[in-house]
C-alpha cells in the first residue's frame, strides 16, 4: 500500500506539474504595459511555489512508503525538534513575505498613483447585461446623467441616462465597443447601474469591480494593437455569462478618425 501511495502521489504531482511547465493552458498574451511585469512576477511565484509543491508531495509519497510498518524496528520516539521548528518557520516566512513585498512594489506602481495627466478618459458603465463606453469629446467634460432617463432598451445614450439638457453632454459619444489608441494611458471611470459588475480585460491584466454608488478610477496602458475581449468578472445575474464586450486597440490616427466619425453621427 505504501508503494501504491507513493506511485499515485508522485504520478499526480508529476502529471500536474507537467501541464504547468508545458503551459498547455496558460495566461493569454499580455497587451498592456503592466502585463510584462505582472506575468514576470507570476512566473517567479509559480516557480517558487511549484518547487515547494513538488518537494512536499514527493516527500510525502516517499515517507509513506519508506516508513511503512515492516514489523521489526520500533518507531522513533521523538516529540519534536525546536531548532527545526524555528528554521522552517523562518524560511517559510521569508519566502512568503518576500514574495509579497516583491509584488507589492508592482501593486504600488499600478494602483497607488492616479492616472497620468493626458490619459484618455473613458467612462465604463456596467449594467445588466452590457457594457457601455462614454467618451467626453472635445470639451473634455462628461455630461450629466440622470437615473430617471435610463432606458436600457434604447441603447447608447439612453442606456446610460445621458441628460441632453446639459451642455457638456452634447459631444459625449456612447458606444458598445471600446476603442483606445495604442501606447497611451487610458483612465477608466467605472460605474454600475444596478448590481456589482467587474470590468475584466484578460489581455491587459486589468480587472476592477464596477460598484453602484461609486465611480472608480483606474488606469492601464495598452501597448499592442488588436481586438481584446472584455468579460464580466462579478456575478451580476442571469446574463452574467454573456455580458461581454470588445476592446479595440488601434493607432492614434485610427482612433481620432473613429471618434470623429462618432461625433459626426451625433449631428
Amino acid at each position, binding site marked *: *500500500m*505504501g508503494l501504491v501511495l507513493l506511485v*499515485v502521489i508522485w504520478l499526480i504531482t508529476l502529471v500536474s506539474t507537467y501541464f*504547468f511547465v508545458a503551459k498547455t*493552458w*496558460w*495566461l*493569454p498574451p499580455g497587451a498592456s504595459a503592466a502585463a510584462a511585469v*505582472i506575468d514576470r*512576477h*507570476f512566473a517567479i*511565484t509559480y516557480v517558487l*511555489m511549484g518547487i515547494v509543491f513538488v518537494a512536499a*508531495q514527493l516527500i*510525502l509519497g516517499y*515517507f*509513506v512508503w519508506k*516508513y*511503512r*510498518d515492516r514489523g521489526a524496528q*520500533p*518507531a*522513533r*520516539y521523538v*516529540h*519534536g*525538534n525546536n531548532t527545526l521548528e524555528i528554521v*522552517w*518557520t523562518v524560511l*517559510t*516566512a521569508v519566502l*512568503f513575505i518576500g514574495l*509579497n513585498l516583491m*509584488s*507589492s512594489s508592482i*501593486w*504600488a506602481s499600478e494602483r*497607488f498613483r492616479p492616472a497620468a495627466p493626458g490619459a484618455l478618459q473613458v467612462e465604463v458603465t456596467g449594467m*445588466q447585461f452590457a457594457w457601455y463606453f462614454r467618451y467626453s469629446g472635445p470639451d473634455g467634460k462628461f455630461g450629466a446623467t440622470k*437615473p430617471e432617463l*435610463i432606458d436600457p*432598451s434604447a441603447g447608447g445614450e439612453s442606456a446610460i441616462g445621458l441628460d441632453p439638457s446639459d451642455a457638456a453632454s452634447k459631444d459625449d459619444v456612447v458606444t458598445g465597443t471600446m476603442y483606445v489608441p495604442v501606447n497611451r494611458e487610458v483612465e477608466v471611470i467605472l460605474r454600475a447601474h*444596478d*448590481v*456589482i459588475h467587474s470590468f*475584466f480585460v484578460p489581455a491587459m491584466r486589468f*480587472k*476592477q469591480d464596477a*460598484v453602484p*454608488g*461609486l465611480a472608480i478610477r483606474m488606469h492601464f496602458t495598452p501597448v499592442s494593437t488588436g481586438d481584446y*475581449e472584455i*468579460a464580466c*468578472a*462579478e*456575478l451580476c*445575474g*442571469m446574463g452574467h*455569462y454573456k455580458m*461581454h464586450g470588445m476592446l479595440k486597440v488601434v493607432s492614434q490616427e485610427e482612433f481620432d478618425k473613429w471618434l470623429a466619425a462618432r461625433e459626426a453621427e451625433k449631428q
Partner: protein
Amino acid sequence: MATPESHVHVHAAPQGFLRKWVFSLDHKVIGLQYYFLALTAVFVGMFLSLLMRIHLIWPNVSLPLFGEIKPETYLSLLTMHGTIMVFFVLTTAPQGGFGNYFLPIQIGAADMAFPVLNMLSFWITCVGYLVMLGAFFVTGGAPLHGWTGYPPLSAVPSAGPGEGAGADLWVISIALFCLGALLSALNFITTTLDMRVKGMSMMRMPLTCWAWFITAILGLLAFGVLLAAGILLLLDRNLGTSFFVPLITVNGQMVGHKGGSPLLWQHLFWFFGHPEVYIAILPAMGLCSQLVSVFSRKPIFGYKAMVYAMLSIGILGFMVWGHHMFMSGMSPYSAFAFSIMTMAIGVPSAIKTFNWLGTLWGGRIRFSSPMLFAIGFVSLFVSGGISGPFLAQPVLDIPLHDTYFVTGHFHLIMGVASIFGIFAATYYWFPKMFGHMMNETLARWHFWVSFVGAYAIFMPMHYLGMAMHPRRYSQLTELNYLHNLLPLQKFITYAAFITIAGQFIFLFNLFWSMKYGEKASDNPWEATTLEWTTATPPPHDNFGGRTPVVSHGPYEYGVPGAASDYVMQTAPAAVTTGV
C-alpha cells in the same frame, strides 16, 4: 481549571423514543443527529454540482424530471450548492457532528456543559436546513446570487429570478444557522475550559480537542457578524432600508433605495467568511494530527508548535478578510495590508504540514482506512494551499480573481481536504460509535476513487484559471477565448461523474457496516486517547459511573521500554514517558 467529573443534570438514561432519539440531551446522540444532517446535505450538494457540471458541457440537454436547465437555474444550483456545502456540511459534520460526540469523551467529561442548549443548537440548525431547502420550492425558486450573496443583487428582488422569496428564505436560513452555531460555540468553549478531568491539562488535550476549541472561538466571534449582516440585508430587502443599496436602477426602473454601500456587506460578510474557512478546516487538521500519530505509532512531531500554529491561524484568520476584496473598490493601501497578513497566515499552515511530515518520518505506518484519508488530506491540503500565495498577492489577484483558479483553490481545501477529514473521522470513530468496523475493501475503493477523482476534477481548474476562465458562468458559449478550454471542462465533468459515483460506495459501507460490519473491540486502533477507554458504544454518561484520571499526554506511542507500543492517557503515572 481541570476539575473532577462534575454534576450535569442529565444522568438517568432517558426513556422513550422521543427523549432518546429526537429530543435527546445526550451529546453523542446530538452529534449523530448533526452528522446525519450533514450526510443528507452533502448528497444534496453533490447532486446540485452534478447538475451544474452536466449543464456546462451540455447546455441544451433535457434531463429526466428537470427538463432543460436554464442559465439562471444554473446560478441557483451554484448558490445553493455553495451555501449548503459550506454551512450544512463543512461547518456541521466536523464540529457539530464529531466535536459534539467526542470532545466531552476525550476530555473525560460526562456530557457537554449545557445539554439543553446543545439540543437547541441542533434543532435550530435543522430548521435552518429545512428553510434553506424551502427556497427551491417558492415562487421564483432558489436565489442566484452565489453563496456570498453580494448586494445589490441579493438585496433587490427585481435583480434576478429567485431573488424574491427564495432569497428571503436563504437569508433567514443563514440567520438561523448563525444562531445554532453561536449556541454550539458557547457549549464547546465552556466545556473545554471547565470540564476537563483531573490530569487533563490544556497541553495534554488531544489536538482534536484543541481544534474544536479554537474552531468554537472562531465561530463565536464570526457568526455574530454574519448574523448582523443578514439582519441588515433582511431589512434592506423587506423594510426599504438602504444599508447596502445605493441609488440604482434595475432594467431602467428605480428601486427606491439610496445611499447604501455594497462594500459594507462585503466587509461584514468576509469578516465572517474568512474565519469560516478556517472553521471548516481546523477540525480536519486536528484529526489529521491525531491520525498520523496513531497510525505511525509515534508521537505527533511538535505538539506545542501544532497548538501555537492553530492559535495563530485562528488569530490571523480575523485579520485577512480583505483578500477577498482586492478588486472590490477597496483602498489599495488596505489591500497591501491585508496581503501581508495573508502571506503571514500561510506560515502556520506550512508549519503544520512540516510537522505532519515529521510525524510520518521514522514511523511504523499502518495503512488503515482512516490513515489513507489522513495521508490524502495532507496531499490535498498542500495542493490547495500552494495556490493560496498566488491569490494573496493583489497584483496576481488582478488576473486570477473570479476565475476558476479561485474555484480550484477553495475546492481542493474545503471541498476535498476538509471532506477527507470527515471521511477519516468516520472510518476512525465508526467502531466506537456503532460497535462494528467499516468494510476495509470498500473503504479502499472509496479512498482511491475520491483521491484520484478529486485531483482530476480540481487540479485542471487551476489551468482554466490561468487561462483566465471566469467563474460562475452558466454557459461557456459566449466568450471566444473560452472555446479552447471546453475540452478541459468536459474532462472535469467526466471526472466528476466518476468521483460522485464513488461516494455511493461510502454511503453503502456506512449503513451496511452498522449491522453487518465485523464486530469492533473497545480499542481496535490501539490508540491512547480517552474515547478508547470506554465501552463500545459508550454508555450514557460516557465512562460507566467512573471518572478517568489522566497522567499522560495523548500521543505516547512507541515509548521505549513500555510493555506495548502505546501508553494510554489513563495509564498509571508510574509509567514514565516524556510528557
